[in-house]
């Protein structure tokens, strides 16, 4: 198989794009794809300060690498979730990458700064799906770190597969409020929010993995131990089966939703959020999702402590 740009031996085949690339051409095309997403969606400009949420995985580290190469002012944000060895290893990968590239990184450890609320503790006490508790906590600390650090934009490494799986989940339940917010750029709609962007929303996770491999980025290959059986993985598997039979389906699903479906959902009138009574974050009710979670954990921990043995 030959590279479609230079006819050299191809290392990567992208069936969705009906293309194959050698290493230098793939790296060029990958960076250009990210650059185009940033420009076409007007995600941010060179003068702005970017906080890049990094997990130690391929997507966020590949994205950080590209943004740094493109000359953006980036700072990494790692949130330590307290998931045993997995968190230790992912933390070490992020720190090593930042040191190698000479990039600043901020570390928020939930066990220290989050009032001792590591993900396993919260999931165990509330009996929530770990991924659900984790998502609520991460979003809170991402927003907090971005606002308190004076950043203009919060950048996340959500890729095409993440977006397609999320879209499928939202459509299966017709979650119109979620569909209205599923965009590659979310403007800062509240004083405690900064703009949130996803430059990889049209880039598959195969492509980000290939980029990380080719650039020698040492990312965590192991899956989060809590992710086994997660709904998103089921949706990804379904979409990958569809993609194998009909290449380009995921890209069309997400792109066409953004072009035609999302604006219709966004046009529907929505309730404006209040300010959370505790932390000031947007809330539908008196408390935001994170403070409701913290309250529930406190209540259940107290009940457990007071329960007879």
């Amino acid at each position, binding site marked *: 198989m030959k590279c479609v740009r230079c006819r050299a031996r191809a*290392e990567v085949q992208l069936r969705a794009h009906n293309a194959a690339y050698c290493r230098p051409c793939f790296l060029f095309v990958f960076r250009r794809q990210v650059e185009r997403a940033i420009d076409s969606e007007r995600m941010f400009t060179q003068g702005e300060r970017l906080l890049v949420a990094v997990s130690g*995985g391929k997507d966020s580290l590949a994205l950080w690498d590209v943004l740094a190469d493109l000359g953006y002012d980036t700072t990494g944000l790692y949130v330590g979730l307290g998931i045993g060895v997995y968190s230790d290893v992912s933390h070490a990968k992020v720190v090593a990458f930042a040191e190698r590239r000479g990039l600043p990184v901020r570390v928020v450890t939930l066990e220290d700064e989050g009032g001792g609320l590591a993900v396993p503790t919260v999931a165990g006490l509330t009996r929530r799906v770990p991924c659900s508790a984790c998502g609520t906590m991460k979003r809170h600390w991402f927003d907090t770190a971005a606002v308190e650090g004076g950043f203009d934009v919060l950048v996340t490494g959500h890729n095409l597969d993440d977006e397609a799986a999320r879209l499928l989940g939202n459509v299966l339940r017709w979650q119109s409020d979620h569909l209205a917010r599923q965009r590659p750029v979310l403007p800062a709609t509240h004083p405690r929010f900064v703009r949130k962007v996803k430059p990889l929303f049209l880039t598959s996770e195969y492509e980000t993995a290939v980029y990380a491999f080719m650039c020698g980025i040492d990312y965590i290959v192991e899956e989060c131990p809590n992710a086994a059986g997660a709904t998103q993985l089921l949706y990804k598997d379904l979409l990958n089966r569809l993609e194998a039979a009909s290449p380009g389906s995921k890209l069309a699903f997400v792109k066409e939703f953004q072009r035609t479906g999302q604006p219709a959902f966004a046009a529907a009138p929505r309730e404006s959020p209040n300010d959370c009574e505790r932390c000031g974050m947007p809330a539908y009710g008196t408390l935001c999702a994170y403070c409701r979670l913290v309250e529930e954990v406190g209540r259940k921990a107290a009940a457990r402590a007071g329960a007879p043995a």
Partner: protein
Amino acid sequence: MFEAALRPFRRACYGVSLRMRVHLRPDRRTVEIAGRRRVAQLLAELGILPGTAMVIRGDLLLTESEVVEDGDEVEIRAVISGGLA
């Protein structure tokens, strides 16, 4: 390229044709498979969908049309991540 150059020497040293060793990550599992085949066929035999894993030989990635054979050391590294419901 280096792996391919080593193959005849390995065969000569061991006297028999070595099977291909396939390392699956993140499973940390290794399987041995005999015979020459295309990467696409190898993935299908292992029940791996195209586009869900990188196939690595040495420091090179292999496309589905490449051929792998006895004596090769191949890593198949899954690219799927996630969990957020």
